């Protein structure tokens, strides 16, 4: 395990494993009076495997960030004592300690899997040849069978988490720190990540420190348990001893300790002892042959038949990506269905109801509670849409009495979940639909959640729950509808559905998503081989020349030359037209503005209010149309599909812009997909909560605000994940994707400028050159 980096070190620890220590640590973040960590003394020997337990808010995450050297400076808070890795201060030991966070989305930085893996070693300045050697087989070692070109946004949560693991392992650390790495994963994902972690720890003899609410997942693999309570160590020792001594107390504070199952709600009140709910009246919700598709995509689920009676709880289960959430949102009338029929008890179609009406009939609990908050305080949140007003009693029942005036976003994770279920139930809907409600819940909030759902069921309501949680299914006596991926051999064959015999197997037609980087053409078009800076320059520089004049000759000459030259870029005509469509639409509109309000000269043909169509305005309008086309078409054609990662590489290497800003922007741009998804969910949640009627424009400000909250959250997590991978390390960064400037790049830029110059000369020679500065600022 000695490589160039370790060989260059003066200090080497035995076997490569790192020793971690916290010496008399106290840490108080800025803006808080109470310290998050107080008088912590911990020593972890190389190769030790430690589980850190504690209730929410006990300071576990902060402790891990301290060991990883990521607590920041005096701007961020006040630190007493030292975090030490081997024999150096933690912030000076970048790369020795790898930190993996809970949110799989936030752990990844770049667009393609292979590029993302290289991000950490690049930041630490590892030579490119060494990086390639390190990454050889890295994906396989975490059990990922994907190509390095695979898009990181198209992986499941479990795959993303394993990729993030491979990304921190690429730092070749001596210690691996995991902050609830399985909390947001389905059972299969949990098993995969644990296997991958243990394999890495054993192969490289790493020190391991894990935070997890679910003790049983890690118990077989760890030897020592440290328990934190309000920032202090209250127990520290061999795993089984500590659990025997502290298990009950930990369980009471919400930790999932083996042998302490959560509280189950009372069994179904209406059962009458024979386990079969009433079937007397019409179903509260019925689906016939429903097919569901995510926005703008092919159907993922087909032929769903379902009847939901009073007192029914249906659990939609199945592997990730099979379309459970899409189906649930479709049944909730929030995602337009592709096919089939959907009826509420009175025959109404949920998808056709107004938002206000829908919010009274179907309550929806979104996977991320933050998607569905609509008010500034907890109290207003509960009062919104409530059937019986006064939320005081409800606040008390939810244990939120003291937090009525707080912003919902400020609640803890468990409190947010309780609040979101309570608001979905506020209008006493007939049907409750919940998407993965028990993800990441601790033992206490799990029990409260199950109780709220059971209460709704016993009042004669019905519920649909998307879940992987076997215990929740059993606790609620839910009927299971298992969605399965249809065998690809017979994807079109309708699969019979067995409805009243749980668990019913319903086939979902799995439609493979198109590979993002499928090799479409045999030869890479010239456009894709260009340095993105060259593409940008070729689009931008001629524009700066062409805008100097507004006349028909220069614009027409430039446009003609461009249309003649663009095919040389290797992009076919149809693609070109599709990409430049916005320009073809915008050009006549701009022309119209000038036609009506342009500078007047010559004969006036029409006059109406402020409109004056004259010889002058007609000529200027024609010139404007041609000019918008001549400026816009090459610019858009060259830039429309620029690859963000390559663009960033080129900005940093070719233009030598500061790498930190460029990479920060590149990582953020990857989040477009994620934030776009947030935006869609926010819209759906507003429809579900009765705020979706009326003008979309008027809803936009509030929607934007909610999006900004999510963006800042995601940005803060992303920043930690990037720093944990050496981002901002005070060394010269290396680049595994060198951005070359070739002769062809120069040629393309020169030709593009030449076109603009020739067009301008043509205008001057024909006496048509018409300076915009003179036209604009000397007055008409």
């Amino acid at each position, binding site marked *: 395990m000695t490589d160039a980096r370790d060989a260059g070190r003066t200090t080497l620890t035995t076997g490569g494993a790192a020793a971690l220590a916290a010496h008399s640590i106290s840490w108080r973040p800025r803006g808080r009076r109470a310290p998050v960590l107080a008088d912590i003394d911990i020593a972890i020997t190389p190769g030790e495997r430690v589980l850190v337990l504690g209730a929410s*808010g006990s300071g576990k995450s902060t402790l891990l960030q301290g060991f990883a050297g990521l607590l920041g400076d005096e701007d961020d808070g006040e630190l007493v004592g030292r975090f030490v890795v081997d024999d150096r201060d933690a912030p000076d030991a970048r790369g020795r300690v790898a930190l993996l966070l809970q*949110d799989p989305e936030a752990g990844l930085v770049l667009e393609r899997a292979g590029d993302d893996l290289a991000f950490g070693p690049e930041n630490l300045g590892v030579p490119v040849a060494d990086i390639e050697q390190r990454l050889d087989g890295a994906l396989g070692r975490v059990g990922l069978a994907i190509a390095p070109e695979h898009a990181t946004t198209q992986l499941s949560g479990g795959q993303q988490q394993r990729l993030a693991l491979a990304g921190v392992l690429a730092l070749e650390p001596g210690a691996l720190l995991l902050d609830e790495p399985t909390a947001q994963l389905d059972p299969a994902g949990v098993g995969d990540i644990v296997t991958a972690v243990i394999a890495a720890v054993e192969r490289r003899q790493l020190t391991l420190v894990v935070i997890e609410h679910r003790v049983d997942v890690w118990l077989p693999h760890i030897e020592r348990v440290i328990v934190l309570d309000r920032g202090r160590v209250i127990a520290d020792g061999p795993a089984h001893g500590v659990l025997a001594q502290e298990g009950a107390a930990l369980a009471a504070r919400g930790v999932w300790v083996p042998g302490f199952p959560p509280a189950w709600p009372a069994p179904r009140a209406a059962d009458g002892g024979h386990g079969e709910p009433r079937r007397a009246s019409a179903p509260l919700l019925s689906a016939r042959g429903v097919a569901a598709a995510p926005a703008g995509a092919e159907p993922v689920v087909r032929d769903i038949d379902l009847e939901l009676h009073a007192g029914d709880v249906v659990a939609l289960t199945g592997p990730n990506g099979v379309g459970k959430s899409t189906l649930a949102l479709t049944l909730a009338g929030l995602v337009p269905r592709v096919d089939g029929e959907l009826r509420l008890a009175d025959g109404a179609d949920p998808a056709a109801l107004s938002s206000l009406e829908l919010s009274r009939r179907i309550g929806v609990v979104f996977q991320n509670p933050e998607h569905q908050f609509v008010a500034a305080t907890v109290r207003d949140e509960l009062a919104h849409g409530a059937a019986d007003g006064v939320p005081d009693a409800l606040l008390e029942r939810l244990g939120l009495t003291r937090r009525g005036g707080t912003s919902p976003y400020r609640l803890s994770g468990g409190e947010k979940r309780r609040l979101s279920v309570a608001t979905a139930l506020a209008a006493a809907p007939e049907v409750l639909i919940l998407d993965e409600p028990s993800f990441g819940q601790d033992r206490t909030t799990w029990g409260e959640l199950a109780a709220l759902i059971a209460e709704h069921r016993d009042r004669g309501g019905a519920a649909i729950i998307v879940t992987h949680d076997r215990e929740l299914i059993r606790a609620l006596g839910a009927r299971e509808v298992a969605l399965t991926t249809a065998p690809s051999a017979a994807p079109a064959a309708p699969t019979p559905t067995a409805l009243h015999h749980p668990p019913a197997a319903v086939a979902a037609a799995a439609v493979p998503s198109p590979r993002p980087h499928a090799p479409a053409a045999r030869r890479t078009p010239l456009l894709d081989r260009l340095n993105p800076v060259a593409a940008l320059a070729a689009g931008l520089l001629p524009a700066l020349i062409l805008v100097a004049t507004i006349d028909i000759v220069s614009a027409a000459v430039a446009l003609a030359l461009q249309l003649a030259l663009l095919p040389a870029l290797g992009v076919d005509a149809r693609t070109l037209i599709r990409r430049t469509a916005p320009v073809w639409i915008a050009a006549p*509109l701009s022309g119209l503005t*000038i036609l009506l309000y342009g500078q007047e000269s010559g004969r006036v043909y029409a006059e109406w209010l402020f409109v*004056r169509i004259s010889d002058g305005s007609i000529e200027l309008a024609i010139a404007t149309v041609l000019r918008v086309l001549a400026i816009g078409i090459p610019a858009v054609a060259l830039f429309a599909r620029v690859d963000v990662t390559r663009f960033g590489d080129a900005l940093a290497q070719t233009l030598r812009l500061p790498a930190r800003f460029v990479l920060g922007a590149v990582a953020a*741009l990857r989040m477009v997909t994620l934030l776009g998804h947030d935006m869609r969910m926010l819209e759906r949640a507003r429809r579900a909560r009765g705020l979706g009627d009326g003008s979309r424009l008027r809803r*936009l400000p509030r929607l*934007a605000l909610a999006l900004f909250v999510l963006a800042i*959250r995601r940005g803060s997590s992303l920043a930690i994940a990037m720093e944990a991978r050496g981002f901002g390390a005070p060394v010269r960064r290396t680049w595994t994707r060198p951005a070359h400037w070739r002769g062809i790049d120069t040629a393309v830029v020169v030709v593009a400028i030449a076109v603009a110059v020739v067009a301008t000369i043509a205008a001057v020679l024909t006496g048509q050159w018409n300076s*915009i500065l003179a036209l604009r600022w000397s007055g008409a």
Partner: protein
Amino acid sequence: MVDIVVASVVGVAVGLVFFAWNLTSSPVRDLLEVLLPGVQGSVHGVWLIGGVITALIVRKPGAAIYGEMVAATVSALFGNEWGPLTLLSGAIQGLGAELIFALFLYASWGVGAAMAAGAGAGVAMVVLDLTLWYAGAGALFATVYAISGIASGAIIAGLFSWLAVRALAKTGALDRFAAGRERGDGAYDDEPESANAPDGAAAR
């Protein structure tokens, strides 16, 4: 470092809002454009939010230009009729807001500074647009566009951004930033560390 990444992600979110605004507002904007000369300037302030809001959140020199540039990049990548020229607009408009914050010596982040910065971005936008895109437009159009564009910058980009940042601070999202700490030390003592968020924000 956190500032750079958060500023980038906020820029991206603003870019998405631009995109949604484009889609939903285009009937209104097209109508305005044809009916009244230059009045479209009154809604162009939306394009100027990126710089002002990013600066109000991170309060660092350069944040206005950077935020507006990132938002413009998202717009350009989604594909609009201006392509990479959006980057030029973003740079100029961001500069307009940046200069105002600089005039305040990066020490004032109140509603006055925010509206002045929004107006500054508006001035930059008006000068650029009247030169590049509406070069052939008449004097009436130019005057109306200038007045409505600058006012829209002050109100939509300035006042609305300031209100948005104030509302964001209440949600706790800005606790880590200067903008979120204004209410004084100890304001967040009762905030529990979130059990579910990875929560660097709460810890830092």
